[in-house]
């Protein structure tokens, strides 16, 4: 092992909160060598970010840290005053999680770069250096960009600016904390490549902290797996992926959806009766500042039959959520027609639509946001039941039944959302939708807000439900890999239009639209061959 640049030994961090002391790090030891790209992976709440915050003395208020951390011999924990200031930015460049929040909103990009040059390496030609710094992270037209304020940048641009700021004073260690949060799959790859490239020349080291194991395998030399404030496994990427030692690592790996898994039952049931038809549906949101915005959805035709499980796949902003809300009658299309059970849903008023609610239900993306925080599980689940079942005793029996169906113990009835885990909350959401036995269920990214290990279990539950073929399911997703094992039919949507639709296997084996191919390429997968 070459001499480590960063050496952390037995680092412990505890944070006092109103609920008691949280042990964020419980004895973490790791090292990074010059020229190395280290990935720190784990689920949210695993304490990963506290490593980055310890290195820059930015721990939360009243947090206690112990242990040792050295950067080429400098004792980081003992730094203070001017030495600490020089160290921050000069030795360690920290790249913040959400660049939009981390950039100063009232200073231009150029000024913010110049601030950093002045702090560490003052001299002449600061503006020229700022332009060069922006060009170095692959930003086009850096001469104009230096005059921009952060709110004028796109998400990808803001992240590149953030990287440029972190690198501006040529630190020996670049630490990136969840650098791809909120970015599209294609951008995620580009940004990670850019960050990893910083270790390739010279003796700089890079540490990337992320929850996204698949993305890290592509760029990291070595991985550290963290769970609940402890390192459970560490090793070279390839070795760790091919021969994981700890059960937690195995769970993380298993949770990466495998594009090659197919739907087990064949999609033969094409004879179900039609429950919903969409004809030439168009949705335009009202303009905010004059001008006519492009339609969120246009020219959409779709037939949904009983027994169908249809996936609507597209990138964020493609209009897939708009489509699911139009199907549910949560928004009124500005053009075209949606028919449900012989009624023109798109022309109905609130109270008429209310009459159809017993036949159509929805499961939402963020399980906690979808549950009324002040209601108990039984109130939540019985909310739609009150439409069909006036008798309280029978309603109560139905709640128990459906809770068992989604794999929850009936004792959960009296809990409130904040007493549930993410997976449990989503099961409650599912139970609410299924409680009145609807004919059509729309699932809006039902697993994407959950931790990866929980995702697999929930998707498995949904798969079992769809196999009964007594209902129609529409599942919205950004991720082709997850839907392959779940859906009979795939509808690919881009910029508000359906660009391709067909049987799942046809789409996978013979994608006709370039967008579909791009989505297939961007699907997360473990890269074990890369290094």
């Amino acid at each position: 092992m070459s001499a480590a640049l960063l050496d952390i030994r037995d680092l412990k961090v505890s944070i006092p909160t109103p609920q008691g002391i949280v042990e964020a790090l419980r004895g973490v030891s790791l090292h990074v060598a010059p020229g190395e790209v280290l990935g720190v992976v784990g689920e949210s709440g695993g304490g990963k970010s506290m490593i980055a915050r310890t290195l820059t003395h930015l721990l939360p208020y009243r947090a206690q840290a112990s242990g040792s951390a050295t950067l080429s011999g400098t004792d980081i924990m003992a730094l203070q005053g001017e030495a600490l200031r020089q160290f921050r930015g000069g030795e360690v460049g920290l790249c913040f999680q959400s660049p939009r929040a981390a950039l100063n909103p009232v200073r231009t990009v150029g000024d913010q770069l110049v601030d950093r040059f002045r702090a560490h390496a003052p001299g002449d030609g600061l503006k020229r250096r700022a332009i060069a710094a922006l060009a170095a992270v692959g930003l086009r037209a850096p001469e104009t960009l230096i005059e921009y304020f952060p709110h004028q940048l796109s998400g990808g641009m803001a992240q590149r600016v953030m990287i440029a700021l972190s690198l501006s004073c040529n630190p020996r260690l670049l630490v990136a904390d969840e650098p791809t949060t909120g970015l599209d799959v294609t951008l995620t790859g580009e940004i990670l490549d850019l960050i990893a490239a910083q270790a390739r020349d010279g003796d700089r080291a890079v540490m990337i902290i992320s929850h996204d194991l698949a993305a890290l395998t592509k760029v990291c030399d070595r991985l550290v797996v963290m769970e609940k404030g402890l390192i459970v496994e560490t090793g070279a990427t390839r070795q760790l992926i091919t021969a994981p030692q700890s059960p937690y690592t195995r769970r993380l790996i298993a949770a990466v959806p495998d594009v090659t898994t197919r739907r087990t039952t064949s999609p033969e049931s094409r004879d179900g009766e039609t429950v919903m038809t969409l004809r030439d549906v168009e949705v335009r949101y009202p303009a905010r500042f004059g001008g006519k915005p492009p339609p969120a959805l246009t020219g959409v035709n779709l037939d949904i039959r009983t027994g169908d499980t249809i996936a609507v796949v597209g990138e964020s902003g493609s209009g897939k959520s708009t489509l699911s809300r139009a199907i549910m009658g949560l928004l009124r299309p500005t053009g075209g027609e949606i028919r449900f059970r012989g009624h023109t849903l798109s022309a109905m008023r609130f109270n008429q639509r209310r009459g159809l609610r017993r036949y159509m239900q929805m499961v939402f993306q963020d399980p906690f946001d979808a549950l009324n925080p002040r209601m108990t599980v039984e109130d939540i689940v019985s909310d739609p039941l009150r439409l069909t079942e006036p008798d309280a005793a029978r309603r109560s029996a139905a709640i128990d039944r459906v809770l068992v169906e989604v794999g929850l113990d009936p004792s959960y009835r009296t809990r409130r959302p904040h007493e549930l885990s993410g997976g449990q909350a989503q099961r409650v959401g599912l139970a609410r939708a299924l409680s009145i036995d609807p004919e059509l269920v729309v699932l809006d990214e039902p697993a994407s807000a959950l931790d990866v290990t929980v995702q697999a279990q929930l998707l498995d539950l949904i798969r079992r439900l769809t196999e009964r073929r007594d209902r129609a399911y529409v599942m919205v997703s950004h991720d082709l890999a997850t839907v392959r094992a779940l859906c009979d039919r795939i509808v690919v949507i881009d910029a508000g239009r359906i660009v391709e639709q067909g049987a799942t296997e046809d789409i996978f084996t013979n994608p006709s639209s370039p967008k579909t191919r791009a989505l297939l390429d961007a699907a997360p997968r473990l890269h074990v061959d890369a290094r």
Partner: protein
Amino acid sequence: MSQTPLLAPTRRIARMEPAVVVGSAIVLLVLAAGIAAPWITRWGSTQIDPLHFLQGPSATHWFGTDGNGMDIFARVLYAARIDIGIALAAVALSVVLGTAIGLMLGYAGGWVDDIGMRGLDIVQAFPVFILALAIAAILGASLPNLILTIGLINAPPYARLIRAEVVALRHRTFIEAAECAGNSHRSLMLRHLLPNALTPILVIAPLNCGWAILTLAGLSFVGLGIPVPEAEWGAMISAGAADMVGGRWWTATFPGLALFITVLGFNLIGEGLQQRQAKR
């Protein structure tokens, strides 16, 4: 989640902000003193001691007497009833009125909301105390009119607060989910939106009680509030202000202290609640 119900309240108090505990203690103490006034002092609120005019604090008259020979200690105690009573009633009126308006505007949206908000803009274009002065002067001083005045002028901020909450909540998924679950307009508003929109109001209301007492006292101070012989802190300070020049400091000082301490109590509760809110 079966908890031991016996211990739950004590635990809740232990978790409370110290400011809330101290503030509540002050307010309850002042209120209790006002209610128990007949047992605490032998003087009535408007009872005249013909032998002692403008006497300094003594064993007979703890806080001294005013120009009419009334016992200031007794009047300070009795005034707590009127001041706190009117403040609570006025704030209750503001909360109910503001919540109803805010809930409806926020839920209806569109042009109803636009027109309602412009209306609130216009009402709020008037500085509150000026509006209070004008309405109190025009309506004339009486207990119900004062409650109405203070309650009315303070309803718009509540309406705005609730509306903002409701508008924010309407974009939350659980409201969409509730709509999907087939709730009626009424049920969406009362069952799903209202309980979730009320939290900020519970924080503001105590601060507002303090403000309401100050407003009432201010109105009485300039002669537009509670009419003179009645015991009210602001009116007592006003009557005592003139005595100050002759060195008779007690007539204005004690009612002012009572007023200040009571408002401080309400403000401490509000501050503590805000702190707790922020910690979440």
